[in-house]
Every structure is written in structure tokens, then in C-alpha cells.
């Protein structure tokens, strides 16, 4: 669609995303998009008796993530979280 050369095909982010998502996200920090409370994923309130996993902010109760697992596929919706803070090993 665009002929601009100011962006790349998102395949170029593949390596970086693979590196991020190989980590244990429960230790990752996040910010609630609703109330800006800062917490780790492991501290979210998890509702699992549902068609998917629903994580809610421990401060305000709004949804911070939804994870649906289907056969051969998974969907992750993070629109309730504004930023993931992930610890990375130093000095490669």
C-alpha cells in the first residue's frame, strides 16, 4: 500500500519479539491502562473459569490481558496494559 521507505516489513521485528516472548512474562512489570497502577503480571487477578484467561488489575479490577488458547493457535490481547517491563540478561 505505502511506497514510503520510512518503515520496515514487520518480519524485521521477528527476532526481537521472539527474544521477548521466550521470557517468563509473569515476572514482567506492566502499567494498567485504566488507572496507571504498576504491578507484575503475576500480581494480576486471574479469572480462569472462562472461555480464556482474563487478568485484571489488582488496583482497579479492569482487564489488563486476555489470553485465548485454541487448537494450534493462541490470541493475546494486551490493550488494558500500556507497557511491559521485561528484565533482560546483560552482556551478550
Amino acid at each position: 500500500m505505502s511506497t514510503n521507505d520510512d518503515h520496515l516489513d514487520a518480519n524485521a521485528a521477528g527476532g526481537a519479539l521472539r527474544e521477548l516472548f521466550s521470557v517468563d512474562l509473569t515476572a514482567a512489570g506492566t502499567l494498567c491502562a485504566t488507572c496507571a497502577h504498576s504491578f507484575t503480571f503475576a500480581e494480576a487477578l486471574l479469572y480462569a473459569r472462562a472461555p480464556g484467561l482474563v487478568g485484571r488489575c489488582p488496583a482497579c479490577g479492569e482487564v489488563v490481558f486476555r489470553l485465548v488458547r485454541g487448537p494450534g493457535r493462541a490470541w493475546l490481547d494486551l490493550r488494558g496494559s500500556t507497557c511491559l517491563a521485561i528484565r533482560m540478561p546483560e552482556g551478550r
Partner: protein
Amino acid sequence: MALVSRGFSGRRRDDDVKLPPGQYLTEDFPVLSAGPTPQVRTERWEFTITTETGEEHRWDWAALRALPAEHFTTDLHCVTKWSKLGTMWEGVSLDTLFADVETTADYALAHSYGGYTTNLPLEDLLDGQAWIAFSYGGEDLTAEHGGPARLLVPHLYLWKSAKWLRGIRLVNEDTPGFWEGVGYHNYGDPWREQRYWGD
């Protein structure tokens, strides 16, 4: 386990019982919930239908209960694969609630106390296919099953039958709801096994 029963294509010992593909029969009524159970007192309950032009139609509990109610028996099919047959309900047909609503919108977004949403074509809510139910098995509908009142659209997977129903917004553009936005099928017909995107 699925391999063993697949040859029977959903049929149970009783040959009269035919289930949608991939479903199993259950006798109890599992409770699924994506959040804390809202406790809504009927004195404070209200239900609104909002049209695409912003016109609001509003009912409080007394107004809802003053409308003609129907007793009906229906089968329930949950996308998590259980089906429960012959459940008995009392509620108001959405045809009754929509009787004075003027709209040309094609889509509806049901929204609930607690923030849940689900989208469906408006035509699936009409012509005797959907109710606001306030009684189950002859008793007031409990909060865990969506009381004081829930949507029931039993020809679609049960996630479309929003518990703790608060209102229905009519819209020209279809908008994915709580589960439809994260992998679950936009329409959700159990007989066509429309569980996930692309099914």
C-alpha cells in the same frame, strides 16, 4: 477421548439427542465468568436500548416485569464444549422490547454490569430467538448465572447470552465484543462449530 466418540458424530445413547459437533452433554450448569460477579439489586437495575441515532429506550425493573413474559425451554451450548438440554426459563422476548424501537442498524452490541460486551447481528435478537431472562428452573435467576437478568440467545454459543445485561447498543458497524476481539468467532453458530476466528 474425542477419537472414541467421534464415530457417533455427537449422538448419545439416546438416539433422540443430537448435539452440535464437538459438544458433550452435562447435567449440571457450569458457571463461567471473566470477572467478579456483579451484585445488582433490582431497585437499581435498568436496561436501555440505544439506537444508532442516540435515541434511548429505558426500562427499570418494574417496567420490565410489567411486560408480557414467556416461559420457554431451550438447549444451551457453551463454546467450552458442554451442552445442557431442556433448560427452563422465564423472560421477556426481545421482540417485545424492540416493538417501539425505530432503527435501520444491522448490528447490536450487548453490554453488561461488570463491563462484559458481546456483538451479534440485530436480526439474531428478533423473531422469537432471544429473551431477557429473569427466572431459571422456576426460581429467580441467581447472580452467578447472570441475575437479576441476562440475555439468552440460545441458537448461538452461550458467550453471546450476556449475563448481568445492562443494555443493547444498535450500531451500523459491527464491533467485536469481549471474546470476539481475542480469537472467538464473530458469529458463533454451534451447529457450524464456529468457535474461533476462521472457523
